[in-house]
Each structure stands twice: as C-alpha cells, then as structure tokens.
C-alpha cells in the first residue's frame, strides 16, 4: 500500500499554480511501536496556506502542515486507538503517522447527526475562529450589530450564524458575487449582504447601516478593513482575523486604509488574533455549536472537492474565492 503526499516545488510570486506543487508516492511505512497510522478522510485547504508557501513549507519538502481528519487504521499506541476519528495537522497527504502526545492532534468526540467534514469546518478551526472572534475578541453583546467581510467564506459564514445564536442585532456581510449574496442572506440568515463589486463597499454599508455598526470581523484586509473602519461606530470594536487580499503578494502589502485615523478619532479598538492561541475555548464553543448543528439551526456551509489529485485545484480555488463556506477535499 502506498501513500501520496504533496510537496512544494517552488515558491510562487503571486497566485500559485499547479506548477508549484508535486506529488510523491511512497510505501506506507511499516508500523513502529508507539505510533498509529491514520487514513485521511478530509483535508482542509485554507487561504493562510498561501503564507506557508512563502515561509513555513520548505521547497522540496512536504506540505506537512494543514488540518486533516481521518480514521486510525492501525495502532500500537493506546492514545490513538484503532477506529478512532482523529483531527491532526499533518497536511496534504493521504495518510498520517501519529505518535503519542503529538502536538495538534486529538481524538474527536463523534456526535450523532454531525457529518465528519464538520470537524474541519464548523466544529474545527473555522468555527472556533469565528467563535473566538465574536466572544473573546469582540465580546459581542445581545442586540449589537456586526459587519462581517468574506461572509460567504468559511469563517465569515459561520461567524454570521454564531452572531445570530449569540443574539446579535443586525448582521451584515460582504461578498463577491450576486449568488453569494443570495447564499449569505437566504441560506445563512444574514440580515443584509452586499456585493463589493457593485460599488464602494463603505458606501453600500452606510446605506444599510446609516448609524454604523457596533462591531466588525474582517478576514480580508485592504479595502475591506477600510470599510470596516468606516462603518464601525464610536467606541466600536474590530477583530482582524486575516488578510486574504494580501497573501498573494506579501512583500507588497496594500497601502493600509487611509481612514485608519478614524480608529483614534472614534475611540475604536482594532485587535488582531489567531485561533491557535485560543484553543482552550474549544469545549465552550462546542457546547454552543454541536446542538445547533444537530438541530439544523447552524448551517454547515462547505464546498467539497473530490479526490487527492485535486487538492491543489481546491487550494487555488479558495484563494480565488470559488468556494462558499469551508473548502475541503474528500479523499
């Protein structure tokens, strides 16, 4: 039996292509005492991986960091029992070998009525990122309004729904196509969504929320962060979770928002965060999210690409915004 692993062939300038990756196929290593072999079921492809292509993944080396969910198929390590569903950070490979106490890996509690893919989306880092942003960073209060950029994306779409669960007031999203606007409002229950191609984002948001919003969650940066700054009202809060707009050209970040001074003038708080520093909130998040997934109140928005051979296509797709919700590859 063999396993396939993607490796990085070259560092890209701009949007990556298939040329930047290669596949290696190797025999699955024989079982070693104290290890477990995992057959991956779903691989996560995420915008932040574009940053790993610049620094993090080595040229010539495997794309060996990235979330995956799989099942233990052979084990001599009691903490990874055979048959267990596990989440780990082993990256773009068909299989993974876990050792005792492996960092970033855990046995998943399987919940009835929750699909396996959900452990990489709403119950994975994506959902936790949204939850942490709303609760720990923004401390969203009932009836407070929120603007969420990349609202059809994995984090944004989940954040809008969680905001609703937390009793938010007006929930407004921005996204990049009419179909996504429809999805965000129709499927995910946002009050309003705008297509940023339809006109200046800040103007569109002001038309919907003339008095501004209490909070914003931005995962895009650039013009979207500027719009968040423009529409956040006095004493409002902005959580900055990512900057997909600049990952493809990190050496030349966009001129940061010209309206940044508004942060000072309107006593706004802008806080950056990364979910990996808030993993202790996972149980708290699951307590809210699992029952709402089971009841169907929380929609799992996913775009699933079939087959290991299409990991790179899926990754480039997520950078282009082809996905709605979480982009996953099913093996």
């Amino acid at each position, binding site marked *: 039996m063999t396993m396939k692993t993607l490796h990085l062939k070259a560092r890209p300038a701009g949007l990556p292509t298939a040329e930047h990756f290669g596949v290696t196929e190797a025999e699955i290593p024989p079982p070693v005492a104290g290890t477990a072999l995992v057959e991956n079921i779903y691989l996560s492809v995420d915008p932040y991986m574009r940053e790993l292509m610049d620094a993090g993944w080595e040229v010539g080396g495997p794309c060996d960091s990235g979330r995956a969910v799989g099942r233990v198929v052979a084990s001599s390590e009691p903490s990874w029992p055979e048959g267990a569903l596990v989440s780990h950070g082993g990256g773009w490979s068909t299989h993974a070998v876990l050792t005792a106490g492996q960092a970033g890996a855990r046995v998943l509690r399987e919940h009835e009525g929750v699909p396996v893919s959900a452990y990489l989306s709403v119950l994975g880092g994506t959902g936790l990122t949204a939850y942490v942003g709303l609760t720990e960073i923004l401390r969203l209060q009932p009836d407070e309004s929120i603007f969420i950029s990349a609202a059809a994306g994995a984090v944004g779409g989940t954040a809008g729904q969680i905001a609703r669960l937390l009793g938010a007031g007006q929930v407004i999203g921005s996204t990049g196509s009419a179909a996504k606007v429809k999805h965000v409002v129709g499927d995910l229950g946002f009050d309003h969504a705008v297509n940023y191609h339809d006109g200046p984002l800040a103007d569109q948001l002001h038309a919907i929320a003339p008095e501004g919003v209490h909070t914003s969650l931005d995962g895009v940066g650039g013009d979207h962060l500027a719009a968040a700054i423009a529409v956040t009202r*006095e004493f409002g809060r902005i959580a900055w979770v990512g900057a997909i707009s*600049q990952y493809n050209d990190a050496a030349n970040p966009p*001129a940061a928002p*010209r309206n940044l001074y508004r*942060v*000072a003038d309107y006593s706004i*708080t*802008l806080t*950056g965060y990364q979910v990996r520093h808030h993993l202790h909130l996972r149980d708290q998040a699951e307590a809210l999210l699992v029952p709402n997934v089971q009841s169907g109140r929380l929609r799992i928005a996913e775009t699933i690409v079939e087959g290991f051979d299409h990991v790179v296509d899926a990754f480039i797709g997520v950078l282009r915004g082809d996905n709605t919700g979480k982009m996953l590859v099913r093996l």
Partner: protein
Amino acid sequence: MNTVRYVHQVRVPNGFPTADDFAFADGPLPSVRPGTVLVENIYLSVDPYMRQMMDGGWDLHAPLEGRAVGRVLESGDPAFHVGQFVFHREGWRTHALVDTADPRLRVVEAFDGVPLSTHLSILGGTGLSAYVGLVKIAGLRAGESVFISAAAGGVGTAAGQLAKVLGAGRVIGSAGTAAKVRHLVDDLGFDAAFNYKDGPVADQLRAAAPDGIDVYLDNVGGDHLEAAIDSLVEHGRIAWCGAIAQYHDAQPPPAPRNLFEINGKRLRMEGFAVREHDHLIP
C-alpha cells in the same frame, strides 16, 4: 476693561495655518444674567486638535471653542461666587459669559504649590489623556517598555513622567529638535529619546529599544505608528490619541504598510479621545 477681545477664525487654511487665518474682534463686556457667570480668563489652552476644528468644526467669524481657566468676576448663580477659579470651554477670548448649565463648567481648586495653569496641563485634559492612555487603554504594567511620540508635547511630557511613576521599564520618546530630545532625557527622565528628523523612525526606535516595546502611546500616526508596529512585541498595545501628523493635510497619509502585523503579533490598537467627540460626529 469693558470690552472683550475674541479670536475669530476667518478662513479655512490649506495645510499649515497662518496668522491670516485668524482675526481679533472686540465686543462689549456682556452682563451677567441669572444662570450665567462672567469669567475673566487667565489661561487659554491651544491644542493640536484645534487644527482639525479649523477644517469646518469651527464657524468662521464667530467665537471659538477651547479650554480655559479664569476667575469669576460676576455671578448670576448661587453655586458660583466672585473670585472663584473655574475651568470652562469658552476659550480664545479675554472674558467669557458661561452658562452654568454647561456641564463642562467646573470650579477648580487652587492647590498650594500647584500653579493654576496645571488645570489645563497635567491636571487638565493633557494629564488626563496621558493617564487614560497609559492606564485605561494600554493597561501598562510595571516593567513594561513604552514608546511615546510627540513626547515633548503636552500629553507626551505628562505620559513619560507618569509612565515612570507607574513603574514602567524603558521609556522612549521622539521629538522634533535636539533641544527637545535633551529636555526629555535630562529634565523629564525618559530613558532614551531621538529626533525623528535624524533618520527613519523605525531604525531609530529599534536602536533605542532593542528588546522591543510593549506599549505605544501615539499622538502622531503615520511613520511613527508604522515604526511602533514594527517594534511592538506580541500582545503589544497601541493607545492612539489624536493624529497631529494628519491635521494639516486634507488627505491623510497612507497608513502603515505593516498594519497586518496587528494580526501577526496579536496587537490591540485602541483609539481614545482627548476631547469631546460631539463636534466631530457628522
């Protein structure tokens, strides 16, 4: 002594303001009505934020707003009596008739050994701004290092000294002349200071704070903010109070190019007000 001299703004400047943007205007000394006090102003505050007011916040050919401390000459309200010192906001004039219903009017104490002017500086808005910025917004803890821009200004001088009182580690300031830099280190107890005209702010700050900074008290924005973001350590905090660098330009400068470090280093940037905001809200 029965006239009042006012400063009026007579036109909106383009860039740095000049004396021609202002004019004196004289008027009769107003008479006290019930519910007012007549105040002879002693100190007037002139502040950077006023440059922003000149862009439309102030009416032309009209008395201007500003902090002032003065002595009550006549009182039409039993809560105030003649001879008391008061703080109020009818600045830029020799005398003011102040409505006693104005919540910003308050009696100030004449502490022994404390000059009256301090009610407009260390005991006034600037001292309070420094305190709020360091303590409430930035949450400065003992041993943490602080960088203060416009450090020789009102808020900056108060903040640098206050940071030391609060037990800060290294306190670094930037200013615009060699004399001010010397003043910061020799007179005010800053650990290090530099002249931002001597070279890139980021390079000078890195040299002055090789281990990075925990807190940045920003009065300036622009390249100072960019330098601070560069030098801040993880979980660093930026308390951002106004933006002098931008007051003279209709077009604000491009914000820091390294802004995304706010995410990378999990920084918190929080704006706070040195003034009331009601003038600014459109």
